[in-house]
C-alpha cells in the first residue's frame, strides 16, 4: 500500500477503511489517496464494491473500520464542494423536461419552496444562477441540445448534461460513478476527454468509477484497483501489471498490452453473484419506469 506523500494537498484519503453491508464485508483494509487536481479511476471487476467505495467517500455509506477524509474533513461533511453523478442508465424517452432544467436542479433543486415566477428577470441571485447554468452547459459543450427534452437526446449527450449538473456549484471534487457505462465508443472517448479537460483546466479532483480503463487510460494520474481484501492505488504503470493484480486478487491475472497501447486484463475474478445490485435503483425509479399498465 502506498501512502500519500503530499498530505496537505490530499483531496481524498482512505485509511485502513472497511465497509460491511448486511453482515457481509464488501472490502477491508483499503488505503488510498488522491491529491487535489488529480484524475483517479476506481477500477475492478463487477460487483467488487467500486460504487460502495465512492459512496463511502461521499459519506452515503458508513465505514465499519478505518477512516475516510475528504477535502480535509471527515466524509459526508463537505457536501457542497462535491459534485456527484450516481450510476444510472438513462432518462425515460418520454420524459418531457428540458436538459437545461435538469442542470438547473443542480443549483437549487434541494431548496424548499418553488421559484417565484419571473425571478430570473428581477432577482439578481436567480439571474446569476441561470447564468451559471448556461455557463456550465457551454463548458461541457451541451448548448446545442440543452433545450431539448432530456429523454430524447443520446446517452452521451445526457451524460454531458449530468456532468454539467454536477459542476453547477463549482465543486472541488467530482465523483462520477460509471459515466461511460452504456455509451458507444465515440461517446466514451469524448466524455472521457471532457472530464479530463475539467480536471486540468478547473483544478477539480476527479474520482471516476469504470470497469474498462482504456477510454480514460491516457488521462489518468492514478488508478485504484479494488478487491475484497483491499485496494492498490498508484499510477497506471505501477498498478496495472500482472504481478500487482495477481497478488491483489490472489488468482493469476495477466495484463496484456495491445499494439495500439490498449490494455487487456485477463483472468480478473468475477465477484460472487451480486450483479443484480449494479443497476438497482435505475430502472423503475420515478421518472424512469414505464407506466405500470
Amino acid at each position: 500500500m502506498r501512502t500519500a506523500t503530499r498530505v496537505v494537498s490530499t483531496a481524498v484519503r482512505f485509511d485502513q477503511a472497511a465497509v460491511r453491508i448486511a453482515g457481509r464485508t464488501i472490502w477491508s483494509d483499503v488505503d488510498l489517496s488522491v491529491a487535489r487536481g488529480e484524475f483517479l479511476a476506481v477500477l475492478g471487476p463487477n460487483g467488487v464494491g467500486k460504487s460502495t467505495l465512492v459512496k463511502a467517500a461521499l459519506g452515503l455509506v458508513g465505514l465499519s473500520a478505518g477512516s475516510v477524509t475528504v477535502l480535509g474533513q471527515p466524509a459526508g461533511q463537505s457536501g457542497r464542494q462535491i459534485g456527484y453523478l450516481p450510476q444510472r442508465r438513462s432518462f425515460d424517452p418520454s420524459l418531457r423536461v428540458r436538459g437545461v432544467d435538469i442542470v438547473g436542479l443542480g443549483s437549487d433543486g434541494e431548496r424548499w419552496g418553488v421559484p417565484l415566477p419571473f425571478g430570473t428577470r428581477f432577482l439578481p441571485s436567480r439571474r446569476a444562477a441561470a447564468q451559471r447554468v448556461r455557463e456550465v452547459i457551454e463548458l461541457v459543450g451541451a448548448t446545442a441540445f440543452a433545450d431539448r427534452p432530456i429523454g430524447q437526446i443520446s446517452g452521451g449527450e445526457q451524460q454531458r448534461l449530468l456532468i454539467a449538473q454536477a459542476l453547477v456549484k463549482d465543486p472541488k471534487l467530482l465523483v462520477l460513478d460509471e459515466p461511460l457505462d452504456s455509451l458507444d465508443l465515440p461517446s466514451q472517448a469524448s466524455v472521457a476527454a471532457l472530464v479530463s479537460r475539467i480536471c486540468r483546466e478547473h483544478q477539480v479532483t476527479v474520482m471516476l468509477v469504470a470497469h474498462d480503463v482504456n477510454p480514460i487510460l491516457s488521462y489518468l494520474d492514478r488508478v485504484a484497483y479494488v478487491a475484497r481484501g483491499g485496494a492498490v492505488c498508484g499510477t497506471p504503470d505501477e498498478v496495472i501489471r500482472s504481478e500487482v493484480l495477481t497478488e491483489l486478487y490472489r488468482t493469476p491475472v495477466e495484463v496484456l498490452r495491445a499494439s495500439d497501447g490498449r490494455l487487456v486484463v485477463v483472468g480478473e475474478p468475477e465477484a460472487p453473484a451480486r450483479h443484480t445490485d449494479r443497476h438497482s435503483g435505475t430502472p423503475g425509479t420515478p421518472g424512469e419506469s414505464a407506466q405500470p399498465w
Partner: protein
Amino acid sequence: MVTGLIAGQPGLTWNIADDIRQLLLYPFMVNAFRAGTIVAVAAGALGWYMVLRRQTFAGHTLAIVSFPGAAGAILIGVSATVGYFVAAITAAIVIAAVPRSLGGRARSGESAVIGTVQAFALACGALFVSLYGGFLNGLTDLLFGSFLGISSSQVLTLLVVAALALAVLAFIGRPLFFATVDPDVAAARGVPVRLLGTIFLILLGCAAAEVGQITGALLVFALLVMPAATAQQLTTRPRASFVLTIALGLAIVWLGLAVAYFSVYPVGFYITTFGFGGYVLATAGRTAAGRLRRALA
C-alpha cells in the same frame, strides 16, 4: 340528470351574456362552478406531478377507493364528503407504506399491491351499496359524477382542503420535482426522496377525493391526467406546462359544466370528452409539427 326540468327547460341562445346569466341563475349552479374551479386547480397542480412521476395507476386507485369511502359513509350515516377524504387519504398511506427496499425494481411490486387494493376497494363499494339498498340513483352519481346538490358547506370543505394541499405542494414543489426527475442525485444531495413521495401521495389522495365529488370515482382522471398530459405534450418548460395544466383544467370544467347544464347527459361525460379532445388535438398537433420539421430539415 333532471337539470332540464329543474331549470325550467334552459335553452342555448346565440346571446352569450344571456347564456351565462341562465347558467348562474340558480344557486346550485353557482356552487357547481365554485366547486369545479377549486377542484380543477387542485387536480391540475397535483396531476401535473402525478403524470411526471408516472404514478397515474396510484392516482387511479386513490380515486377508485373514494367510491367505497363515499358509499360506506352514506351507509353509516355520515356525509359522503368525509367518506371521500378518509378513504383516499387512508389508501394513500397504504400505498406509500409499500416497502421499496428492493430499490427501483420494486415499482412492479408496488403496482401489484395497488391493483390488489383497488380491486378490494371496489368490491367493498359494491357491498356497501347493496347493504344500503335502493340506492341506485346515487350509485350512478358516485361513479360518474353529478353537479347537482353541491352545498355551500361542501364548497367550503373543498376550498379548505385544496388550499391546504396546494400550500404543502408549494413548500415541497422544487425538491419534489428534483426527486421526480432525478431521484438518485436528489437523494445524494440530501432531498428526503421517500418522505416526499409519501407526502405527495397523501396530497394526491386529497385531490382525487375532491375531483371524485364532481366527476365521480371513475372519471377522476379527466381532471387529474388529461390536462397535465396535454400540457406536457405542448411544452417542455416545467413552469409553462404547470400553468397550462391548470388553465386547461379550468377550461374543461367550465365548459363541461356549462354544456351539461343545457343538456340531459352527465357532467362527467362532458368534462372527460373535452379533456380527451384537448389531448388528442395536442398529440396530433405535436406529431404533425414534428413531421413538418423533419420534412423541412
